[in-house]
């Protein structure tokens, strides 16, 4: 037991932090929010590829660093500080999915490109409002050499900008039991219809409707013995994504608190910095307490899922703590920055919008509490 980071882990965090500070300024974040933006950030993307960030969790035989998924969490924490575009997260979660669910052939097809920064990807393998709900939203009909997918997916991140998307569907084959298969599909083409969703965070999310969308057999994840993906593997992927998102939320929470504290030290009213008032300090202290709870529970969840565990309990707790810490930190930072932090010309609202979105994404605090209640045998 040791809740401190190794020198290598600290070094990775510092490298990631300086990379995002340099390559992901709020001017970029603002540009990506503009209507019509594709959500791509080529310069940042290239910098991440050059720094080897995309290869961190993957095996060396696919070009990765084999450094571990927890280390990816440390990068996500720094990404969250800088409001890194979501295409980085969605690509990495896709990669984790392929690594866990795919055979050697699919891993060889996708992972080396992903590691090199040549592949952008996303995923839709759980209910975006409840990550514990793994029921596929698509149906798959058997045809010659492949499958026809139909159904509607909501809140697919970067669906219209990526090269490949991992989805799940329930198979329908005469005289066979229904199975859950994974499908790696290319956005666009016959049977694909996507509509951009307008969210509070102006991020790149879409509603995707598939109608008899053809997928060839060589892009199907059929599970270890061909009888479908194991629910445990899908649960692990969803939980890994939530744990990593929690790391992102921790970074965002820390960032807004630090910015706001800096503001209260220079903003003077009544002849003294407002940061010298006890009411202000207590609000800051409360945000710090919530941040520590969020940080510890998120790192725990990222660590256990990084070791391959499903970790329902740790993930539920992390989501509960991170949702509230991030949301209330942004709202209380608005309180401390007043009008100055409320206009669009200043940056705080960029985090506030992201905090609300990530709170709802994957599961609200009430939803995560249900996961915990179920895990604890209360229901």
């Amino acid at each position, binding site marked *: 037991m040791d809740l401190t980071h190794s020198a290598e882990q600290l070094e990775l965090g510092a490298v990631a932090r300086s990379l995002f500070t340099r390559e992901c300024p709020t001017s970029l974040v603002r540009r990506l929010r503009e209507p019509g933006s594709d959500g791509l950030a080529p310069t940042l993307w290239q910098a991440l590829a050059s720094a080897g960030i995309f290869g961190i969790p993957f095996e060396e035989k696919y070009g990765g660093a084999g450094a571990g998924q927890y280390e990816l969490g440390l990068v996500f924490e720094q990404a969250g500080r800088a409001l890194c575009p979501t295409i980085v997260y969605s690509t990495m979660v896709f990669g984790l999915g392929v690594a866990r669910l795919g055979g050697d052939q699919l891993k060889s097809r996708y992972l080396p490109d992903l590691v090199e920064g040549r592949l952008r990807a996303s995923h839709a393998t759980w*209910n*975006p*409002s*409840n990550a514990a*709900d793994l029921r596929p939203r698509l149906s798959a009909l058997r045809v010659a050499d492949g499958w026809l997918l139909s159904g509607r997916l*909501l*809140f697919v991140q970067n669906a219209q900008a990526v090269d490949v998307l991992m989805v799940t569907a329930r198979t329908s084959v005469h005289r066979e039991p229904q199975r859950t298969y994974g499908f790696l599909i290319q956005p666009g083409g016959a049977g694909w219809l996507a509509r951009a*969703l*307008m*969210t*509070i*965070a102006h991020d790149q999310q879409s*509603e995707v409707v598939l109608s008899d969308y053809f997928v060839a057999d060589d892009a199907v994840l059929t599970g270890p013995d061909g009888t479908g993906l194991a629910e445990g593997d899908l649960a692990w992927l969803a939980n890994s994504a939530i744990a990593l998102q929690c790391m992102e939320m921790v970074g965002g929470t820390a960032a807004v608190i630090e910015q706001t504290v800096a503001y209260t030290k220079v903003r*003077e*009213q*009544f*002849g*003294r910095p*407002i940061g*010298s*008032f*006890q*009411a*202000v300090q207590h*609000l800051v202290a409360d945000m710090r307490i919530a941040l520590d709870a969020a940080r510890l529970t998120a790192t725990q969840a990222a660590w256990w899922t990084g070791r391959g565990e499903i970790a329902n309990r740790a993930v539920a707790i992390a989501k509960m703590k991170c949702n509230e810490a991030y*949301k209330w930190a942004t*709202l209380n930072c*608005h*309180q401390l920055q*007043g*009008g100055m932090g*409320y*206009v*669009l*010309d200043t940056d*705080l*609202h960029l985090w*506030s*919008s992201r905090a*609300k*979105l990530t*709170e*709802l*994404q994957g599961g*609200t*605090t*009430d*939803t995560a*509490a249900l996961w915990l209640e179920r895990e604890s045998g209360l229901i």
Partner: protein
Amino acid sequence: MNFELDAAQSVWRDEVRAFLRENVTPELLAEVGEHRTTLLGGEVAAFRKKIGAKGWFGLNWPAEFGGMGLGPIYQHILMDEFEYWGVQGPDLTVTSVAPMIMRHGTQQNREQFLPPIARGEVRYAVGYSEPNAGTDLASLKTRAELDGEEWVINGSKIWNSQAHVATHEWLCVRTDPEAPKHRGISVIIVPIDTPGVEVRPLITWADYRTNETFFTDVRVPRTNLIGQLNEGWQYITGALSLERGALTNAGDFRRHVDELKELVRLPLEDGTRPVDNAEVRRAIAQLDADVEAAVLMGLEAASLLEIGEMPTITVTVAKVFTSELRQRIADVGTRIFGLAGALSTADPAAPAAGRYEKLYRNAPLMRFGAGTNEVLRDVIAQRGYTMPRLGR
């Protein structure tokens, strides 16, 4: 003590409701939704004219000033109904500026400035805060100097809401830079179209437009000074109290809770209904109870005003409570529909047309605006319980 409206008050409420039912059209609401960022079109102007024709802009004014002479309870009932319907009724011009002119203005001030307000012809923006004088308002630096028969004004105001649609500025200025900071302040009325006034937009997170207004060698007649020279601080603190009083209505809160009760019965994307979830029911019940308390706070403040007391502590308590309640309503309204709660007004699939997403972005303003809740908590403790002051 009586928790029931009397017969006359009920008639009044029914009259206001009937008026709103008839005149609040989808077209008007659409323009109200837009008017934060764009200039007013015809709907709001026409609606204001109808309110003016009813005489409601002067509903709380004494008959000698052309008002209806109705008491605070009647005013409260009207404001509450307007908020429930989501439209602006009598604004700060009538509820805050006009009473100050009546109470502190010279006879000439009253004759010159009140009649156009009663007719709904003019709209005031209230120019208090400056970049370095927010919560510490008495540090304001915008300067007015007398030159013959004219005031010459230089400086700037920030968070100057409505300035882009107002005809006049109720402007707080420093007229004696040598005096202690609370003593050298006066109020001067400045027509917005006076040369040297420049209104620049500031857009907030809620898409709400406020302004920064600059005054460069702006000249207005000497007689535009309200009341006595250097007595402005007591006028504006009175106006702020009334402003807070006007904020304690909870008509829009009641509307939100009523609406949420209906919305949670509709099925979500996955076929479930929020109302079948115990947490959702509890969250709404909690809001319902809090809104009830907020309504009572507003009614108590109105009742105290009715018997001639300035309800400083009551409206301060209500301001802190309602501003934090607004944040909770918005939070619940955005989290009980799953990720769909993140959809904005721009998305046709947004629950409640994105009203809660918008309210979520709107809510922070009321916590720090019109007196930050931190300072108001000091006021509650120090003036409500005569606790010792530290610092400030």
